[in-house]
């Protein structure tokens, strides 16, 4: 079972084979992303009501929450890939971590700044050092730390390995972010989407939120496939250069 799966995965470590595979997937994820984001913007900005307490600032939720979800999901995927890279030494797993990191950092930045723009009118402060905000800021620094570390070695393979270890150590931050609103008293509101009793939100607001979450997710898949192909090409380019230099 495992032995049959590994050669198949290794085939896609070849940039040409991977490029063909991703060329088949990309039009669908890119198209889905454009449609979902377009519909999400329409429902989020026009066809949904203002909140009875928060007025129109609630519309910030439709970019803040999907960005927050992506910041955690992308990091979780990176951690899983980092573990797979260390255990099975698969080149694609290591490169996935590197390909996804800048995207995760961008989503985290959007989450923090959009949250800040929501906090000012609703809480009266751009920033408070409470558990949810601080742990999300730590996540942002984990992404930046990874990006600095992965390119800090002459040997790219060592950079990938050091980065993978950092990502795995940092994974403790994910449950802290998720449960920070339950474990500590925070200004940030508790979960209203994933709760034991289902979403605590009206359908008119759930629709744009889910559309945007879908749009962000498919956008990420599109970007990460292209970035993975870029990383595979970079490795191939280094190999050609080494071959040319040896003659």
């Amino acid at each position, binding site marked *: 079972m495992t032995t049959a799966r590994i050669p198949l995965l290794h085939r896609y470590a070849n*940039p040409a084979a991977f490029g063909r595979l991703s060329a088949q997937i990309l039009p669908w994820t890119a198209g889905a992303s454009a449609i979902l984001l377009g519909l999400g913007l329409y429902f989020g*900005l026009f066809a949904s009501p203002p909140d009875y307490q928060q*007025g129109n600032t609630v519309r910030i939720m439709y970019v803040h929450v999907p960005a927050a979800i992506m910041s955690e999901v992308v990091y979780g995927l990176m951690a899983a890939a980092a573990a797979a890279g260390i255990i099975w030494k698969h080149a694609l797993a290591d490169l996935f971590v590197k390909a996804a990191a800048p995207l995760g950092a961008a*989503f985290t930045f959007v989450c923090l*700044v959009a949250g800040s*723009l929501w906090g000012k009118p609703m809480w009266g402060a751009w920033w408070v050092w409470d558990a949810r905000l601080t742990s999300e800021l730590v996540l942002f620094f984990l992404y930046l730390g990874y990006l600095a570390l992965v390119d800090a070695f002459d040997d790219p393979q060592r950079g990938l390995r050091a980065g993978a270890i950092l990502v795995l150590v940092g994974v403790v931050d994910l449950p802290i972010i998720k449960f920070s609103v339950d474990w500590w008293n925070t200004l940030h509101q508790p979960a209203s989407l994933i709760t034991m009793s289902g979403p605590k939100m009206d359908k008119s607001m759930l629709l744009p939120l889910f559309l945007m979450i879908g749009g962000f997710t498919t956008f990420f898949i599109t970007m990460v496939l292209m970035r993975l192909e870029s990383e595979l*090409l970079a490795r191939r380019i280094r190999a*050609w250069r080494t071959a040319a230099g040896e003659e």
Partner: protein
Amino acid sequence: MNDFQTFFAMGGYGAYVWPAYGLTALAFIAMLGWTVTTLKARRREEQGLSAAGRARRGRREAKS
């Protein structure tokens, strides 16, 4: 105020809502632009290097 102005005012919260959406749009454009230009440049470079590599191999085989 017409509908257009009401929409942009966002009930007085336009100064918070629009920058949040603007920043998100910028982040998406930056990710897309950077990713696509890098991929295109690397494809071009790899094609050039692999053509040169094949040419070297061809010369080597012709000599021997």
